[in-house]
């Protein structure tokens, strides 16, 4: 499995079909497939790239970003897609720096934080080794590596699944069979809605819509959506505190390397938990990327996640670019016929 929802783009880049591709990252859908496929994937700061034209899943988390085979290509594509768009009220007016020019190869004095909460029980030991090894290499390159704490990390998945599904339930309401797309016939309006939406959405989407509707319902709003919004603020504050001490954060992208097709679909909760390391970045609206960082025993790619300050993609990319030269390149996938 190449990973989450933008994995087609990641696989196409990994296979060498295209030099770069775009994806959307709501809870890790750029970074996690980039990790699984051994490519670079960047989720920019929320508001850096216009969401105009992007089919919304969770509007306060969705962000467009590039996949590429190396950091420089990713920086070039990112520079091309960033910038203010008057059509997207949440897009930032801030000027876009020359990201490629920021790739100096120099990270001397850069302060790198390694969050202890990201190295938990469920983490594949091979991934932990690879990521800690990357931090050691950063130290060799002159960076200052310190352990940091992001104490609210454990609430991120629960928070995310309330916020994302609530927004999803509203964003997907327009697919109602009235103006376009599938329409199932029924004798009355409510029947048409029910039949159309039952037929048009798959199980996982229906599950998320129901979850979101519940979280926003009268009598439950405060306990779920309201609470989740508060915890989201706390998760953001964790990062703010951390970035007073460090310039970038190094962490694993995913707790495991790629799994086989059909291995996980029966247990949605386990599937949701595999996003645990990427979700906090979306909740906090921060820029993050995943880059190749060695392989596990089976030869599958491991992803190093680099997280930066809001609007500071330049430092993020500079760190990644310097690490790229120091880390082993990702294995090229064996394609049919080769």
């Amino acid at each position, binding site marked *: 499995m190449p990973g989450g929802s933008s994995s087609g783009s990641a696989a196409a880049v990994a296979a060498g079909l295209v030099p770069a591709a775009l994806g959307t990252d709501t809870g890790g859908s750029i970074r996690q497939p980039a990790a699984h496929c051994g490519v670079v994937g960047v989720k920019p700061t929320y508001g850096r790239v216009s969401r105009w034209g992007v089919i919304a899943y969770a509007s306060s988390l969705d962000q467009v970003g590039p996949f590429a085979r190396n950091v420089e290509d990713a920086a070039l594509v990112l520079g091309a897609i960033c910038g203010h768009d008057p059509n997207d009220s949440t897009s930032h007016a801030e000027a876009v720096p020359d990201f490629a020019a920021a790739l100096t190869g120099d990270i001397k004095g850069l302060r790198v934080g390694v969050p202890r909460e990201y190295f938990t029980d469920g983490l594949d030991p091979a991934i932990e080794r690879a990521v800690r090894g990357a931090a050691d290499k950063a130290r060799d390159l002159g960076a200052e590596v310190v352990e940091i704490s992001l104490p609210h990390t454990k609430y991120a998945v629960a928070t995310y699944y309330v916020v994302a599904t609530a927004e999803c339930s509203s964003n997907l309401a327009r697919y*109602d069979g009235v103006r376009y797309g599938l329409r199932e016939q029924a004798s009355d309006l409510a029947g048409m809605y029910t039949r159309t939406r039952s037929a048009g959405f798959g199980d996982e989407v229906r599950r998320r819509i129901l979850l979101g509707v519940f979280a926003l319902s009268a009598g439950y709003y405060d306990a779920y959506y309201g609470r989740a919004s508060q915890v989201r603020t706390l998760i953001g504050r964790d990062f703010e505190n951390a970035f007073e001490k460090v310039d970038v954060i190094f962490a694993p992208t995913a707790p495991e390397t790629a799994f086989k097709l059909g291995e996980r679909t029966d247990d949605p909760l386990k599937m949701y938990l595999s996003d645990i390391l990427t979700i906090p970045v979306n909740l906090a609206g921060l820029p993050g990327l995943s880059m190749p960082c060695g392989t596990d025993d089976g030869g599958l790619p491991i992803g190093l996640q680099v997280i930066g300050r809001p609007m500071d993609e330049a430092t993020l990319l500079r760190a990644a670019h310097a690490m790229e030269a120091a880390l082993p390149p990702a294995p090229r996938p064996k394609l049919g016929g080769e």
Partner: protein
Amino acid sequence: MAAREYDIVIGLEVHVQLATRTKAFCACPTDFGAGENSQVCPVCMGMPGMLPVLNRRVVEMAVLLGLATGCAINRESVFARKNYFYPDLPKGYQISQYDKPLCEHGKLPVLIDGAWREFGITRIHIEEDAGKSMHGGGGSLIDFNRTGVPLLEVVSEPDFRSADEATAYLKTMRRLVRSLGISDGNMEEGSLRCDANVSVRPTPDDPFGTRTELKNINSFRFIARALDYEAARQWDMLQHHEVVVQETRLYDAEKGRTYSMRGKEEAHDYRYFPDPDLLPLIVENDLVEQARGALPELPWQRTRRYMDDLGLSAYDAEVLTADEELSDYFERVVDEDVPAKTAANWVSSELLGALKQRELEMASNPIEPERLRSLIKLVAGERSRAKSPRTYSPRCSRRRTIRRRSWRRWAFSRSRTKGRSPPSWTRSSRKARRKSSNTRAEKRRFSVISSAR
């Protein structure tokens, strides 16, 4: 009116359709008269991937109304999604404001039977209109031209103790939005829509009774009837030891009764939450101060001035200020030789009577104020030449009739030859002319008001 044996409590929710050139969250025009679904775009049609961008003019107009009604302008307010399914709501949610509205805690001064009253305004918030459904002919059709047109929802306190008070408030609100130039305030055409919360109780000392929400009372002609009917219905139920259910009811103007919108419509849980596509609305000081500077003389200020400074009766002051154009006209008639009281008499009885007889609206009044002023002076001259003013009155009835006929003939014919007015003043061409002559506010008209939800 006969004394009621119970106390009515009414609160109003008034929707003001704003006369902006473009819609609230996209650049579609809001012109009246365009063909169905011709003023739509991917944004207001709720196409995938589309995003809303707030029209600044909407905020300016909302602040204007907020300041005029003495509201606190919240420097930070939040757009929320009101989620429900209906075919004329393309996104499946309406962008509105919920727990953080733009304006709060205002009041509207209303002149009732010569006395000033103040009715509380709980809040004013911005929202977008839905489309227009047309049912029948074996199916339903939807016109999305109205989708996304900006509305202000003005929620009153439950301050009205009679249908007449509620009506007077609504009329003042209409005058206000017209004088501010933010809406044409036309109820029949849907630019002003009204829902009412109604409850009854034995005496004013009792706690509020269970209320019902009355929808579709969109005409000054029957609003009082609808409210009185609903109050009487509730009182009758209570007298028969029945329980008033909190529900939404529709007023049927033809049958003159209200009926329950039982079922799905009332079970709505709108699942409001902050719209993540729109940042919190921050209203800067400059915008508020500019709006404050742009405030015209407000209708009640004008009414008061007519009473206090011009010495007009409350009745005359009210009649003359009921309509912005009429009042402007009146002020142009007054000068040092034509005192306000005289001008008021001429305008409110002679002129309005003549217009009414010809089925003309003030907007198409062909008589220049200067002409009326010179006429008043001529008549005054004739009067002063009469031997005794006292003997003038008894004799004048016949003379006045003659005079009235002749002045009208004179005024109308003269202006007609000047080509100022259209050749025929028939009822059928009234709307067209009103449209062409009203340049102050953009006109947007809808012949059918969709059933309110």
